[in-house]
């Protein structure tokens, strides 16, 4: 049954998320301004917070929807600050999602305790991963893969203890030749030259990786499938499946930031005595304040995007295929957070651009939402193929 009400358990869980987010927000400005430093794993208050907080409410499957709550909790955490992503490194990186989706049982056992980053993008390839040029060549004599190439924009790449990389085992096979490999930090030939300098999410340790004759055991091929299928490679699809959960998650991160902007702007409007009248009907604009009208519109966009995200999460939780929906929610959130954070600054004026307030940081931080995990344009390609019943070859 369609229902939008949170259970008491859900509310209690979200209150805990909020309490933690409030602590994180105290450090948001500092971490943003000191980009070169790695942020600490724990904040001074967090240990005390964890020691004193009430036990987590136990939720049975009958009174909560885990995947939906995961989206709401992610939003709640990022409402505090984007840097929670780094401090939550014990919960795994994007590579762990790939491991969970495509790894064998043995691989999950062996690699599950590492924090795995995901390295796909290269200096010469972004949205089109079939152009990956990092190579993996099998050395039959030693039963090792030899990896050569360069990866950039690796999220939490400094902190990660291991990585899932995309590399081609046969460049001539195109997409079908691309496989994922598990590589541990410290493996000879695996260098981490630097942390990237960015517009936003500066606390995130985005890294560049270089692989030079880096040798790894043959068993480090994620999923262990060495075959190259000429059409619609199963291996590539397996990895792409990762995105059906990570795309909504990135949408949730961006929307958490957008919600922070919405909340701050609402507070300032209310403090200024501006009334937000939701009872007003069509034709009622004459009775509405311009700032209020603009804000209420941004709030609607936010809510539409939030619900689209929750529906996508709900589908994942129910085990329903959500390939199209995950692109819809990611594309919507990507546009929404741009419009919302930029619009909130417009409403508040110079207060919005002062670095001591966080609104300008939220605009910079959330801008990545429409770029990583598939740009808005890539999502629209996927959506259009779905609508038109087109293959990748039909619509590029």
């Amino acid at each position, binding site marked *: *049954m*369609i*229902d*939008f*009400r*949170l*259970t008491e358990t*859900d509310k209690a869980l979200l209150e805990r998320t909020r309490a933690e987010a409030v602590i994180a927000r105290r450090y948001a400005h500092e971490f943003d301004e000191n980009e070169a430093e790695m942020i600490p794993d724990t904040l001074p208050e967090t240990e005390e917070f964890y020691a004193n907080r009430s036990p987590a409410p136990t939720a049975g499957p009958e*009174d*909560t*929807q885990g995947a*939906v709550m995961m989206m709401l909790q992610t939003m709640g955490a990022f409402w505090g600050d984007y840097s929670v992503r780094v401090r939550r490194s014990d919960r795994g990186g994007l590579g762990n999602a790939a491991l969970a989706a495509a790894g064998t049982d043995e691989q999950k056992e062996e690699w599950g305790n590492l924090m795995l980053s995901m390295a796909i993008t290269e200096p010469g390839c972004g949205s089109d991963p079939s152009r990956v040029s990092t190579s993996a060549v099998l050395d039959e004599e030693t039963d090792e893969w030899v990896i050569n190439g360069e990866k950039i924009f690796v999220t939490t790449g400094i902190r990660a203890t291991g990585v899932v990389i995309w590399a081609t085992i046969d460049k001539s096979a195109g997409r079908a030749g691309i496989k994922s490999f598990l590589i541990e930090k410290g493996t000879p030939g695996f260098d981490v030259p630097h942390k990237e300098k960015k517009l936003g999410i500066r606390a995130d340790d985005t890294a560049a990786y270089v692989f030079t004759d880096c040798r790894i055991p043959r068993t480090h091929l994620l999923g262990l499938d060495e075959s190259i299928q000429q059409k619609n490679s199963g291996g590539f699809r397996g990895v792409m499946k990762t995105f059906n959960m990570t795309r909504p998650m990135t949408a949730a991160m961006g929307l958490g930031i957008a919600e922070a902007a919405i909340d701050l702007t609402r507070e300032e409007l209310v403090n200024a005595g501006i009334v937000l009248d*939701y*009872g*007003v*009907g*069509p*034709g*009622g*604009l*004459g*009775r509405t304040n311009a700032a209020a009208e603009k804000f*209420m*519109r941004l*709030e*609607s*966009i936010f*809510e*539409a*995007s939030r*619900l*689209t995200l*929750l*529906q996508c999460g*709900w*589908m994942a939780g*129910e085990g329903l295929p959500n390939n199209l*929906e995950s692109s*819809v929610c990611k*594309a*919507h959130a990507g546009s929404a957070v741009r419009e919302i954070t930029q619009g909130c600054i417009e409403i508040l004026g110079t207060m919005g651009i002062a670095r001591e307030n966080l609104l300008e940081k939220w605009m910079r931080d959330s801008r990545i939402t429409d770029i990583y995990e598939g740009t808005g*344009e890539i*999502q*629209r*390609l996927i*959506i*259009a193929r779905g*609508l*038109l019943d*087109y293959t990748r070859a*039909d*619509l590029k």
Partner: protein
Amino acid sequence: MISFGLSEEQEMVRDAMREFAADAIRPIARECDEASEIPNDFLETAWSLGLTSTQIPEEYGGAGEERSMVTNAILLEELAHGDASLAMAALAPSLFANAILDQGSDDQKKAYLPLFCGESFATGAVAVSEPGALRDASAPQTIAEPKGESFILSGRKTMVAYGDRASHFLVTARNGDSLGAFIVPRDAAGLKISGPEKNMGLRGLTTTALEIERVEVGADALLGGPEGADIQRLLNVSRTGLSAVMLGLSRAVLEYCVPYTKDRVAFDEPISKKQSIAFRLSDMHIAQHSTRMLVWQAASLLEHGEDATKAAWQARSYAAEKSMWIADNGVQILGGHGFIREHPVEMWFRNARTLGVVDGMVAI
């Protein structure tokens, strides 16, 4: 617990209404628009589906099925996917009946609900919108002055669906500092019904104007009895209903454009293979999908008796903006054909703008 799952019954209703819209609504939508009239046959056929009477309790002559606003929103999206005018005509009796059902006193339920349980089409009408610039149903200029136990109503109303054949009108008016809704019989002295009105869109749906010149009604005419009714809730219900109609229209435009772009060839390939078109279709899909989420949320909150004013505002304003944008792009995608009345897109374009500015015209 948050859920987006339709019940089996809701899936059945959706499928049945989708079929009805395809078979009985879409084929006559254009002729109704051109003739500015919906044939009586259609109203009777729609009546026979029991859209109104099934939700009226058995004690008043109905089938006594529980009214679900979510189910009704789903139903309305499907009917409006066929055509907005015909969908709103089919549900016109529910607009009045559901207001009585939701907020009427026991006496009012006894008096009026049986009117909608008969064999053939019968309707009341709801008069919410007012003529003139910058008029908002939340702040009506129509006033109700107390006179002893009675009220004297004065004002003007517009976009009153089926005012020509309604037995009663539910008229919103300012009653001192509060809003009230008053049940006015069509033969009340001082009530002048004129029409049909001529508007840009929703042409099939007959609407009338009311001139209310010192119409006296008794205390029992106040919806909800002496305490009055929650008019905001009635508006929230109708705004959510209108957003469901706009959603159905949005989906209709998108689903019309998809095959068109696959057939239409320019520069040696279907235009659907050009990103400028394909991306626009994606954005149209994103817009209608996210509208549905807001519609469901508002309907669900209303169904559970929660405060839905903000949710209904969001659903309505978002649906209005997105449906207009989608219809506008539908015209653009069809190019010259979008401008020709042979295709339904120009009608949807007119209907979208119309739906975005009306209020109190459909219930869920």
